[in-house]
């Protein structure tokens, strides 16, 4: 494969394009609302109308406004149809043909803030290309950054570019990506092997960013992994995807097969000396396997439990070899940084947090779906402008970021800019990008109890504070919720939170008390109001 051949594929793809294109979302959300049948009906209607010469119908990745799915969009013009059913699909084709029918599905304004205020880097091709065809990806520039990397940059230059871009890990902790790459590049393993691992074990309740990226644009992730492997000196990669994402796994498998066939993965990629293979490892449903050391144990075929760090995987990871682990979204940012330059990326976002972040908006919010916004955008903008606030117009009470490891941020702090440091300052974390919006009717004690229930069920059981502490915390929260707790129980709750936070072995336990601590901090009256009447009388 040469650049010219890549370009030829892109040109062929462009030339085959028909004047009108009807895009239908076939990512998991829309598929669950019969998106596949809508796609078929659209195709049948085009054929029935004799428009096959001018109109093409194509299944694409996530168009983001999942609550309005299945979504169908028409190019050019961008007419966007919501909640299309197999029955109403022919009406979309009729409208394209210039004969609008009465039963046409509702149209959305593509210029509404939900779409207009987004800034797409990670999701730039999500919803516009067919995720099951590598040619579609190549037509929009896929694998060009890899070519450029292999032929024009040294590994050190790649790492330097990533470092200068200011990219930080999108899995939640925000570790500088360039620094991590440099560490792996400098580390020497026992047998010279190194590995690149993509963490797609997205387990936070209410988070679906990584799933969407894998389902909508898998080649972007593979390209990012290949560039990373070149930079750190690895020739084998693993994509660890949770088993609950069958579609993401299937599309990634397909993408790997297609890339191998074209010589974009495998031996001597782009006729260089660089070899890189990617295999998929499927998670078996344990949340803790999103923690890097547990993930490594799981790939090795062992029980997925974390181990103490240091040594960090960058020095001693898979089978004792230096291992680079980045999140799906982190890898999805790599190709654009190489393509547009680190300065471009560093120009987006805030001083400490560069680029954009994808969030999954869920909960009591009008526009459930994916948003990608520059770092530093305020929570208010995300929740109220893009998200459209609470359906029906009630007030938003709080937003929960970072899943079971994050915290609840009250409405009065919604002017907080979304960046790593600011979110930590208000008692939450960036996390992987789940954002659950809660209205006035939500009990914050119940929210804390829900997340603690999740953590106690997902604790691997290795270390005592997390294994037993979360169970005791859950019992205390249940007691408070039931209105039978005393002041002493509340004090014990606080004390146990501190213990679990400070003494647990891995991030799961260390962050498990965050939902409790943040609700205690911002909504103490809700806890106090649930305590038993005779406060303090029981000693």
């Amino acid at each position, binding site marked *: 494969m040469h650049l010219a051949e890549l370009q030829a594929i892109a040109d062929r793809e462009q030339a085959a394009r028909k004047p009108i294109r009807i895009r239908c979302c076939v990512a998991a959300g829309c598929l669950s609302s019969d998106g596949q049948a809508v796609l078929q009906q659209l195709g049948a209607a085009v054929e029935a109308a004799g428009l096959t010469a001018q109109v093409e119908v194509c299944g694409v990745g996530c168009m983001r406004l999942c609550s309005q799915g299945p979504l169908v969009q028409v190019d050019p013009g961008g007419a966007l149809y919501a909640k299309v059913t197999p029955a109403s699909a022919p009406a979309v084709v009729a409208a394209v043909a210039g004969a609008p029918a009465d039963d046409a599905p509702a149209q959305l304004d593509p210029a509404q803030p939900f779409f207009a205020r987004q800034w797409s880097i990670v999701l730039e091709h999500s919803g516009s290309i067919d995720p099951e065809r590598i040619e579609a990806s190549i037509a929009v520039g896929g694998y060009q950054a890899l070519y450029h990397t292999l032929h024009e940059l040294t590994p050190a230059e790649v790492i330097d570019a990533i470092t200068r871009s200011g990219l930080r890990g999108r899995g939640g902790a925000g570790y500088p990506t360039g620094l991590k790459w440099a560490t792996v590049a400098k580390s020497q393993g026992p047998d010279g092997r190194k590995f690149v691992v993509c963490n797609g074990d997205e387990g936070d309740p209410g988070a679906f960013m990584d799933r969407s990226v894998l389902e909508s644009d898998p080649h972007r992730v593979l390209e990012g992994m290949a560039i990373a492997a070149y930079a750190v000196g690895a020739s084998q990669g693993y994509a660890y995807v949770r088993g609950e994402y069958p579609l993401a796994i299937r599309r990634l498998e397909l993408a790997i097969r297609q890339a191998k066939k074209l010589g974009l993965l495998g031996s001597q990629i782009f006729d260089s000396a660089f070899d890189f293979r990617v295999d998929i490892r499927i998670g078996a449903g*344990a949340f803790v396997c999103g923690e890097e050391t547990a993930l490594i144990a799981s790939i090795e075929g062992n*029980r997925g439990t974390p*181990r*103490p760090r240091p040594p960090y995987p960058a020095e001693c990871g898979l089978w004792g070899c230096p291992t680079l682990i980045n999140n799906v979204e982190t890898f999805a940012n790599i190709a654009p940084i190489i393509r547009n330059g680190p300065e471009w990326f560093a120009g987006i976002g805030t001083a400490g947090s560069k680029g954009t972040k994808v969030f999954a908006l869920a909960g009591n919010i009008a526009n459930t779906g994916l948003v990608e916004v520059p770092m530093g955008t305020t929570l208010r903008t995300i929740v109220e402008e893009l998200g459209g606030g609470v359906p029906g117009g009630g007030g938003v009470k709080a937003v929960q970021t970072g899943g079971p490891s994050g915290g609840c941020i009250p409405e009065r702090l919604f002017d907080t800019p979304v960046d790593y440091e600011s979110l930590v300052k208000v008692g939450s974390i960036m996390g992987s990008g789940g954002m659950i919006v809660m209205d006035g009717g939500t009990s914050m004690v119940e929210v804390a109890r829900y997340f603690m229930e999740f953590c106690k069920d997902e604790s691997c059981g290795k270390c005592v*504070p997390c*294994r*037993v502490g979360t169970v005791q915390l859950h019992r205390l929260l249940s007691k408070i919720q039931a209105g039978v707790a005393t002041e002493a129980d509340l004090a014990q709750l606080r004390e146990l939170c501190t213990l679990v936070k400070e003494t647990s*072995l891995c991030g799961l336990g260390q962050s498990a008390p965050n939902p409790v601590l943040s609700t205690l901090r911002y909504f103490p009256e809700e806890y106090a109001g649930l305590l038993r009447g005779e406060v303090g009388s029981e000693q």
Partner: protein
Amino acid sequence: MAARTLTIDGKAVSAREDESLLEAAMEAGIAIPTLCHLEGVGDVGACRLCLVEIAGSPKLQPACVTRVAEGMEVCTDSERLRAYRRMIVELLFAERNHVCAVCVANGNCELQDVAVAVGMDHVRYDYLAPSCAVDISHPLFGIDHNRCILCTRCVRVCDEIEGAHTWDVAGRGTGARLITDLNQPWGEAQSCTSCGKCLLACPTGAIVRQGTTVAELQRDRSRLGWLVAAREKKQWNG
């Protein structure tokens, strides 16, 4: 092997560079409570009792898996650490059914010793009182899961020293249980060599030799007659 000099609880200590803080402290006569640590097998840092404070590190570090470093200032005993250790032992006592009065290991139990050492005289948490199985399918040994604290010493000693890897852990959270082979009864676990190392490694009364439990105690009264005959009739063959 290079040496490192550090201070532990204000005391200057020298240690080999590959030593853990726990080893260095023990050599210096400084006791740090442990439960999952067992000399001779790999450390896992799971019980969290040996957490220590290291100057300049915001996080508490487990002494068993933290290497010594030049100039390190370690504190193994502070009010915070004492409180945490006590709470961790309380959590363990509340987790399963640790009833010392009816336990084979009473008076010879590391969990009990640690409770005394950290000053845990009562448990403030709800006893979870789970219903745990007892497996006595093995001809020589038995395991009472009610007394297991999931320290995984048996797992490591079986894997690392005997090389059998009969033991492992299944399930998660408080539902985690030690299993033999692929969760078969111990007596049917073909990989078990009956070496008994797990029994020797167990810190509590969870893994026991059969015939040593209180319920199994049987008095052989016929021995009395034999003894009397031996003494009075000088008959030794009864």
